[in-house]
């Protein structure tokens, strides 16, 4: 009983530590303009006004569309390319394999700001500046190492013997893949997609450096440019509401796929 109490207390500390900042921004987003500056942790007056405001401004809606579109496209491409490479790394033997692993490790450590200035110039000249592809490209690049590590760790765990067994059971090569291997690989691919999506969703540095208009600005950048409904209004409420909106997908992922995310992060980064 004593041990349980101790663990319960520690658990509570962790939960509070993790959740308070999130709850705080949620609280701000529900405060009325009048109570916004009262410093109370829990709103005295609840309102949905802030949410109404942001969804009425083109600025936010457009940014949300950009964020979703860019993150989804980057995720799909990175996961497809990453799956191909990870399959090769975990199943085939070919010269240059360790070089590839080394290069992706290098990129995982790469200081992203070092790419900002050359990409800024290159993209301006290539007409990619302030476009979706202009952000998707660096996102794919930095998501690939993550995807490759996570997926190869997953692929190494798949008992590939099953492919043989399926063939003995009368399956063709294609059937063996579709009915036996694919269902086993799917969770790994899915988990990787979540991690990659979170990564792209989160980015701020590239998004603020390689965009200049609403055409391709993502939400994190739009947040930092928020001025509120009118010039004279304090944007705190609107920013908070927008922040809560882009936090929702993350919370959903974490709630529904906690185990997978933990497995993906740990297997990809440290291999036992």
């Amino acid at each position, binding site marked *: 009983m004593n041990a349980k109490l101790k663990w319960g207390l520690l658990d509570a500390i962790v939960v509070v530590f993790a959740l308070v900042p*999130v709850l705080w921004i949620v609280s701000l987003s529900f405060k009325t303009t009048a109570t916004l500056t009262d410093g109370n942790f829990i709103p005295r007056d609840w309102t949905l006004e802030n949410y109404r405001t942001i969804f009425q401004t083109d600025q936010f809606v457009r940014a949300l569309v950009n964020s979703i579109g860019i993150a989804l496209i980057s995720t799909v491409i990175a996961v497809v390319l990453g799956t*191909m490479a990870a399959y090769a790394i975990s199943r085939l033997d070919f010269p240059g394999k360790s070089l590839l692993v080394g290069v992706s490790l290098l*990129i995982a450590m790469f200081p992203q700001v070092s790419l*900002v200035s050359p990409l800024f110039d290159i993209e301006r000249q290539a007409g990619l500046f302030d476009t979706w592809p202009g952000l998707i490209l660096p996102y794919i690049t930095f998501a690939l190492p993550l995807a490759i590590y996570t997926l190869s760790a997953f692929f190494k765990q798949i008992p590939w013997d099953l492919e043989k067994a399926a063939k003995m059971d009368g399956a063709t090569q294609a059937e063996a893949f579709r009915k036996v291997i694919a269902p086993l690989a799917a969770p790994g691919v899915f988990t990787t997609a979540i991690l990659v999506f979170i990564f792209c969703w989160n980015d701020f540095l590239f998004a603020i450096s390689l965009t200049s208009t609403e055409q391709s600005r993502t939400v994190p950048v739009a947040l930092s440019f928020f001025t509120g409904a009118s010039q004279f209004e304090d944007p705190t409420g609107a920013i908070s509401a927008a922040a809560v909106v882009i936090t929702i997908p993350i919370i959903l992922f*974490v709630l529904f796929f*906690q185990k997978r995310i933990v497995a993906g992060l740990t297997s990809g980064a440290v291999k036992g």
Partner: protein
Amino acid sequence: MSIGSTTPGAAAAGEQTREQVRPERATRRKKPLSEGKRQERRLGWLLCAPAAFVMVAVTAYPILYSFWLSLQRYDLKFPDEREFVWFENYVTVLGNGYWWSAFGVTMLITVVSVVIELVLGMGLALIMHRTLIGRGLVRTSALIPYGIVTVVAAFSWRYAWTPGTGYLANLVSPEGAPLTERASALAIIIGAEIWKTTPFMALLLMAGLALVPDDLLKAASMDGASAWQRFVRVMLPVMKPAILVALLFRTLDALRVFDNIYVLTAGANNTSSVSMIAYNNLIRGLNLGIGSTMSVLIFLTVAIIAFVFVKLFGTAAPGSDDGSKR
């Protein structure tokens, strides 16, 4: 690229140990390639080519281009004055107080936050690994800081410390404005970093904890080791590779600190990091020459630190073959 040579080197070392175990393989490999082997190679290359191409095209070429730009006077506000100046930009940057201040701030943030994260992360990892109740709840909560958009978290901290608005500001320093003073602002930045990334550290450490065999701990306690001794003498040594990998990743990540500073102080009162001033020179100042010089310097700094980690501590590259054979 100096770290480039270390990673394949580490992988090659792994290769060597394997060859010592099975010497006959090494000799066999020298034989002319059979058809099956050639096909395997071709398929391997084919599958990796797109990923490798994208990664190299979007990093290697720009970093070289960046070096080329850094040798020029190149200000988009005065495009006509573009001129090749060799290392003049480097002299300018390295002789500049703001650069060194930003460098110091970056190092300070990195060292302090990583050390605190290591301690807190270890605690969190132990809690997540061992807790008797609510394991799912703890893990789920811990993942939220990891997943949340940094800018969102930064706004939460900013409003928490804004006089009037914030519950923390009113509580801790009702008089002052903590975000406008250098020391307190840096402390808040570090706090925000720690909050955001401790869970990630903890997850990496937890993976290491899972490698410590339960029987080993039991044996140690039979041998009379106290809980603390078990932790220091048994768990830490087994976890060392995981700890080093976690440290390497987090250190290099902390050196990139940008989002939090941008939102919390915008670099005011000498709280800029190197990423922050590189960005300011580039996007705000449109000075491509100076911005690129900073880019190159930051790249070199990171390269050196990674090199030191790999060489000095023998951090195994995750994913390289030797990492998994431990």
